[in-house]
C-alpha cells in the first residue's frame, strides 16, 4: 500500500512518519514535495508535524495554499484516507478539510510530554483495531493544539461520533488537569463528515516501538492497513 508523506519547507516529522510506516510493514511510503501538483497513485496521505513555512502568519495558514494541498483535497473528496498529525491537523483545519481551529495552548507555552488519550470511536479507517474506551499513551509536542469550534460544530462532532480521541487521565477519566492545551471537549483528534480525514495533535508515529517508551500508536497504522486491505479486496 502506497502512502504519500507530504514535505513542506519546515516539516520536521516527515521522516518520522516515513520510518513508522516502514517499521510497521505493509506500507510503501513516498515523500511528496509541497510544490508537486499530483499525489500520483497512492492509497493514503499523511500530513506530518513540524512548522510548515515557519508557522508564519498562523500554523498551517500558508501550507494550505501550496500546490500539493489541492491534490490532497481532491483525494479526500474522492474518499481517500488522509491523516494529519500535529501541524498536519492544523493544515487540514486551515484548508477547510476539517472544521474548527487550533489556537495557542491555554498555558501559552509549548508543551511536550507523553499524554493519555481515550479512543472514542472505532468506526474509522484509523482506529478499527483499537477498542472503544481504550487509553493510549502517546507524546504531544505543540504550541498550538487548543481545539476550538463553534457550539454548533462541537454538537455536530459529538452527535455524529466524529471525535476520535480525547485527552484523559491514565485511567481514562476526563479532567482539566489531563487536558494539556485547553481543547474544547478535551478533543485530541477529529474526523470529517465522511470519516476519511483524521486530524490529531498527539504523535502516533512516535509511539510505535518499545524502545521509544510506547507502542500505543501502532494501532493507527494497523487500522489503516486493514482498511486499505479491505478496500483492495
Amino acid at each position, binding site marked *: 500500500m502506497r502512502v504519500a508523506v507530504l514535505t513542506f*519547507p*519546515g516539516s*520536521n*516529522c516527515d*521522516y*518520522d512518519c516515513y*520510518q*513508522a510506516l516502514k517499521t510497521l510493514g505493509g506500507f510503501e511510503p513516498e515523500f511528496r514535495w509541497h510544490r508537486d501538483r499530483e499525489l500520483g497513485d497512492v492509497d493514503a496521505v499523511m500530513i506530518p*508535524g*513540524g*512548522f510548515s*513555512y*515557519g*508557522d*508564519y502568519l498562523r500554523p498551517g495558514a500558508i501550507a494550505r495554499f501550496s500546490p500539493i494541498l489541492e491534490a490532497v483535497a481532491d483525494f479526500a473528496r474522492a474518499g481517500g484516507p488522509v491523516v494529519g498529525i500535529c501541524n498536519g491537523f492544523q493544515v487540514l483545519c486551515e484548508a477547510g478539510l476539517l472544521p474548527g481551529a487550533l489556537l495557542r495552548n491555554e498555558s501559552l*507555552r*509549548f*508543551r*511536550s*510530554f507523553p499524554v493519555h488519550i481515550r479512543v472514542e470511536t472505532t468506526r474509522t479507517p484509523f482506529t478499527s483495531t483499537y477498542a472503544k474506551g481504550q487509553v493510549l499513551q502517546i*507524546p504531544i*509536542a505543540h*504550541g498550538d493544539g487548543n481545539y476550538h469550534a463553534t457550539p454548533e460544530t462541537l454538537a455536530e462532532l459529538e452527535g455524529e461520533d466524529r471525535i476520535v480521541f480525547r485527552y484523559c487521565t*491514565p485511567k481514562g477519566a476526563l479532567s482539566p488537569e489531563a487536558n494539556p492545551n485547553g481543547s474544547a471537549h478535551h478533543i485530541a483528534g477529529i474526523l470529517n463528515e465522511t470519516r476519511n480525514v483524521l486530524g490529531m495533535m498527539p*504523535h502516533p*508515529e*512516535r509511539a*510505535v*516501538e518499545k*524502545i*521509544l*517508551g510506547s507502542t500505543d500508536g501502532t494501532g493507527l497504522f494497523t487500522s489503516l492497513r486493514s482498511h486499505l486491505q479491505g478496500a483492495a479486496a
Partner: protein
Amino acid sequence: MTPVTEVTDIPQPRQGDPEITPELVAEHGLSEEEYERILGILGRTPTFTELGIFSAMWSEHCGYKNSKRLLRLLPTEAPWVIQGPGENAGVIDVGDGLAIAFKIESHNHPSAVEPYQGAATGVGGILRDIFTMGARPIAVLDSLRFGDLDSGRVRYLLAGVVKGIGDYGNCVGIPNIGGEVFFDRAYEGNPLVNAMAIGLMKREELILGEATGVGNTLMAVGARTGRDGIHGATFASEELSEDADEASRPRVQVGDPFTEKLLLEASLELIRSGHIVGIQDMGAAGLTSSASEMAGRGGSGVVLEMADVPVREEGMTPYEILLSESQERMLVVAERGKEHEVRKILEKWELEAEPVGEVTDDGRFRILEHGAVVADIPALPLTDGCPTYEREGIEGEEVKAAREMDLSSFLEPEGDLTPIFLELLGSPNLTSKRWIYEQYDTTVRTGTVIRPGGDAGVIRLRGTKKGIAATTDCNGRYCWLDPREGAKAAVAEAARNVVCAGALPTAVTNNLNFGNPLKPHIYHQLREAVLGMAEACSLFETPVTGGNVSLFNETDGVAIYPTPVIGMVGILDDVEAHATSAAFQAQGDVILLLGENREEIGGSEYLYRTQGMVAGKPPVVDLLAERRLQHGVLGLIQRGLVRSAHDCAEGGLAFALLESALGDGSQAFGVDVELHDRLAPVALFFGETTGRVVVSCAPEDEADVLEAARGFGIPVRVLGHVTAPDGAFSMRTPRGSLQIEMSALAERYFGTLPALMERTEPAPEAGVQEEF
C-alpha cells in the same frame, strides 16, 4: 564578480571612514601591544575596515588570546577522535561506519540583554557548527545558570531563554535530550546560556571548513547580510555594565529557525552532492572569520568582492558587511564551474547562493569594494597571529576565607530532620526542571530513548544497535571554592551520569565560563580549572575535542562563579539492552549504594538554602576510586543486574533516592532505607559527597549484585527497599531520620519551579521586552 587576481594596490582609506586614532583602536578592544603587532604585520597603518577585521579576529571570542596557552594543556587525542579542536566541531568514531560531531557553545552576553533572541541564536549557531561538518543534528542539550528566582528580572530571563531555546530547536526539529540549570545569586546579572548539539554522519561524509583549490568560488549561502550583530564577537569579550542593556541590544542577532531548517537540509544536500570542497558557518565575526579561517586552514588566500554580497539594506559599508553577525548564513567553497549546481540546490530550498569571491594562492585575505582594495592582510597572521597571554594568577582572599570556614556547627542537627528536607524542596536547584524541558520537543526524530529529567539523555542510532548518551555538568560553587577540585568534580559527574545511563564515556566538549582574566584571581581560577579538567579527562580517557571559551562574564566588576561546563558523550553498544533510567522500576526491589559516604557539606545546597552560605571545602574527588566505581556500574548494567542507576549529586543521598522514587512523575514509589553510618545525619542525607551511585535490582539478583560489585572493587551495601506506590519516604540513620508521605514530596518536587515562575507580582523589568 569581476575577476581580480593581480591586484597589488595598497588599500586606501574609504571616503567617510573615521581616522585611525589611539582612541578608535582602544574602542575596538585592542591593546597598544596588539596594535603594534598589527602595524608590524601590515607594515603600515590599517584602514578602518582592517582595524575592524583585526578587532573581531583578535577578540577573546575568536582569538582565545587569554586561554589558548592553557587550552594546550587539555588532552585532545585518542584513537577514536577523528577531528579534535580547531574545526567547527569535534568528531569521534562510533563504529559501524558512523561518526558523531558534537560541540558546546555559549551565548551568555546576548542572552543577558535579550534572552529570547540571545538563546535562540545560540542554538542556531551550534546547530550550524554541526551540520557544516556534514552531520545531521540529532540532539541538543542546554546548560543554564541564573540568579535567584525571587528577582523579577531573573524570572524574565529564565522564561525568555527557555522559550528562545524551545522555539528554535522545536522548529528545526531537533530533540532536546537533557542539560542542566542552576540558580545562584552569583549569576544574577550575567546568566549563562550554553547550548550543545550532537550530529550523526557517515565517516566519509566529513567535510572541513577549508578553502582549497585555487580559482574555486566562494559563495555566500542562506540569509542575506544585514546590520545586526555587528561586533558581537567583541561584545562577547567585554564585561557587562548596568547600562549595557540598551546600548548593546543592537549587537544581539535575530534568529529565524525556519530559514535554519531550510539551510540545514540544503547544506546536507550540498555536501552530499560533491560540488563543494569546504563549508563554514558565518558565526561570530561573520564573513570575516569564516573566510579568513577557511583560508588559514586551507593554507590558501581569498579575495572577496563586497559589492557581490547579498545584503538586506542599501549602503552597507565593507566594515559592516564583514562584521555583521546576521544569522543563518554560510560560506561555501564551490568547485569552479559548479556554481550553477550549488545555486540550484539552494533554490530548491528557497534560499540564495551568490558568488562573492575566490580562493587564491597568495596567502592573503583581500577585500574589494567595486574592484578597489579596502583590506589586504596576510591570512595566517590574522587567524593564528593573535598574541596569546599568560597572566598572573593569584587566589583571591575572599575564597580562601570561605573555604577555610569551620562548618561544624551546621553538622549538629539531629533527630527528625524532615523540616529541613521540606525546606530544601523549596529550592529549584534540587527539584524538578520539568517546567523547562516540557517546553522542548524531546521526542521528534523518534530516536529518544531516555528523555530529560534523569542523569543523561540517550538517543538510539537507527540502523545499528548503538546509542549515544549525553550530559552537561558543572557545579560553579565547587569551582569557586576550589577551581581545580571543582573542575575534576564536573568531569567526574559528567562521566558518572553517562555511565548511569548505560554508556561508556567517550569524549568531551567544554565551555569555559569565567570572569575577566586580566584580574589575577580570575586567571587563577581559569588555570586551576583547566588543570583539574586535564587531569580528570586524561584519567577517564575522555579527550576534549573542542568547545568554547567565554570570559569577561562580569557585571559591574563582579564575576560569576568559575563555571567550566563539561559536555560529555558516551556510547552504548546495545542501546536496547543497556539504556538505564534513574527511576525505580518495581515495588520490592532492593536499593543499593555504590561508593562511600563522607561527612562533607562544603559548597552544598543545604548550606546555601539554610544558611545562605557558599563555604567550606567542596566534596573531595578521588579520581581513581571514581574510575573504579564507574567501571563497576557499567559492568553491572551490561550484565543486566540492575534495573535503575542514579548519580548522587546536589541535595545528596536523600534527593538521589527521592528522584529515583519519583521518576518522570507518572508514578511515585515509596522508599524504605536505613543507614548505619555514625556520620552527622545532615551530611548523610544532604551532603554532596561525590563518587556515589544509587542502584536498584530485583530481590533475586541482590546477591549477584553484591558479589559483582565487590569483584569490581567498589564499596557496596544494601540500603533498603522500594515500597508501594504512593507510600512513604523513610530514611533512618542512628542519629536522625526523614519520614514523610511520597504524595507530599511529589507535590513539592514538581511544584516548586512552576510556583516560582508563576508568581503574580509584576516582574519590574519585564516590560523591557515590549520596548522594541
